[in-house]
């Protein structure tokens, strides 16, 4: 499914060695003196950092600036001006007059919440069972999840649409969310996270008479919060940003999600770049806020090995 295999998501492969622990050990073992940076190197590094920053963030700032420039202002000027001469928020209101952009935002949010919730619940349950419980067929199920990673989501997108249509969910938001609600990749991520917990903890809990559910809730879950947040962040971003799948499923302009709605906007009013700029910012700003507030969980997840190369 597109939501699941969205390229914005690092790939994880279950590994045999518990690399996360080894990594942490090594980091602590690093000599402190080696980590210090000479003043000259520092300057070079910051110059390069700022240069890359301009390349990565510049286009967003330019778009933001365009969206704020007044209608009387010449946006095509040969000497580009980043700061608007007549700053105005009127284009943001004008977007809402042209397309029901706030409804689109609510639609995107609905899909994203379903996808995030489904993935947290479904993949942590399955990941726990696959890594902490012995049962017949475990290897086979694990193999099935691994095998689907090879398949690009676009290959099955047509027959997935047929399936959703058979369920009577074509042209509905639930139909957009449904296939991505439990991603194979997330199941494997959770599987990997639960594995780093020592077996002895389980055994102690079993001796104390804890059943499967209690072990899941009181021992498993608290130890994988980092990975759960990575799963949640990427499920949200994937659902919010997805374009191809909602474009295929939704035919009714009232039900569009933000990405499809934006494309619709650019098709109808391509002659006013300020309007389109305002529209893109409406879709962009929420995701940046979500990511900026949660980035420390994300980078912590990267260091803990939730994201593997």
């Amino acid at each position, binding site marked *: *499914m597109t939501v699941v295999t969205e*390229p914005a998501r*690092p*790939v994880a492969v279950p590994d045999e060695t518990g690399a996360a622990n080894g990594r942490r050990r*090594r980091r602590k*073992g690093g*000599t402190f003196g*080696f*980590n210090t940076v000479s003043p000259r190197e520092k300057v070079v*590094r910051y110059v390069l950092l700022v240069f*890359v*920053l301009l390349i*990565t963030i510049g286009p*967003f700032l*330019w*778009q933001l600036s*365009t969206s704020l420039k007044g209608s009387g202002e010449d946006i*095509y000027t*040969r*000497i*580009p001006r980043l700061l608007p001469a007549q700053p105005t928020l009127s284009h943001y209101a004008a977007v809402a007059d042209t397309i029901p952009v706030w409804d689109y935002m609510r639609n995107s949010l609905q899909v994203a919440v379903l996808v995030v919730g489904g993935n947290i*619940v*479904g993949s942590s*349950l*399955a990941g726990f*069972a*696959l890594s902490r419980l*012995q049962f017949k067929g475990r290897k086979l*199920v694990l193999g099935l*999840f691994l095998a689907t990673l090879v398949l*690009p989501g*676009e*290959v*099955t*997108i047509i*027959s*997935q*649409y*047929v399936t959703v249509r058979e369920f009577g969910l074509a042209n509905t938001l639930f139909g957009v969310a*449904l*296939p991505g609600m*439990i991603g*194979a990749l997330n*199941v494997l991520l959770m599987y990997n996270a639960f594995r780093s917990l020592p077996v002895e903890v389980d055994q102690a809990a079993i001796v104390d008479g804890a059943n*499967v559910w209690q072990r899941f809730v009181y021992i498993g879950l608290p130890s994988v919060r980092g990975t759960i947040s990575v799963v949640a962040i990427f499920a949200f971003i994937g659902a919010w*940003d997805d*374009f191809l799948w909602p474009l*295929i499923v939704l*035919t009714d302009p009232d039900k569009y999600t933000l990405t499809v709605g934006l*494309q619709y906007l*650019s098709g109808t009013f391509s002659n006013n*770049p300020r309007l*389109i*700029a305002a529209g*893109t910012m409406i879709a*962009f700003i929420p995701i940046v806020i979500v*990511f900026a507030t949660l*980035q420390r969980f994300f980078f912590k997840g990267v260091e803990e090995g939730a*994201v593997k*190369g």
Partner: protein
Amino acid sequence: MRYHRWFSPWVLVVPALAWLLVFNLWPSINTVILSFTNAKPIGGGTFVGLKNFEALLHDEQLRYALLNSVIYMIVCLPFLTIVPLGLAVLVEKKLPGITFFRTAFYTPVVASAVVVALIWQWILDDRGLVNGMAEKLGVISGPLPFLSDQWLLLFSAISLTIWKGLGYYMIIYLAALGNVGRELHEAAAVDGASAFRRFTNITIPGVRGTMILIAILISVSALRVFSELFILSGGNGGPGGRDSSVVMLIQQYSQGFEGNLGYASALSIVLFFVTVVPMLALARLNKKAADA
């Protein structure tokens, strides 16, 4: 010894397994079935034998799409395997403010492809930022048709994909760099190896496995490109539809009265084989390098 009832694990696994079967496994099989029919987006469809596959052979747009995909892959591969590694080394040292830079470099990844494509569409417009500045500097006399020339449009989309991918592969490298032994770097530094020597002789071999994984990811995602080309070309695949990708053709046949899900499924099978080839080739390369 088991400490749970036999069905407990299955209760936990069943939701995920059901999703896997209904939304991954069954659609894979159904794609093959559909490719032998003339199913329509509205429903229905009858068996038509190999007709769709015969049509593939004469599809001029598909030929362009495959050519575009190959060009896409060849251009993206070197840029996206090397530059993000440099970026990862750049943001690896925990200097003050580094979290800000890491987050900022990752922003294009987090943004929707639709959003960034619309931003680039405006920057590359005939009267946009790039053309305006180039004319001001006297580099060009008239605007370059970034969005309406077959090749310029393709390369605009490729640059957009590279720009959007930098932060993504940077993060994967960053995770891998944590595994490259610091002791090696220290020993080499003591022996007087320059930063560049250490990069080529320690860092690169240390992340070789990651590099091959990244090369696989880049190839596959280059072949799967959709949103960038779709938005930049205004949804119609550029002049004469020559700037389509395979996924764009799939989408095109999935809609409306002209739609043909059978043919779209046959295209999906083409996409499957096209993406599997570089995956297998690079995985083989990885094995060879590991054996050597």
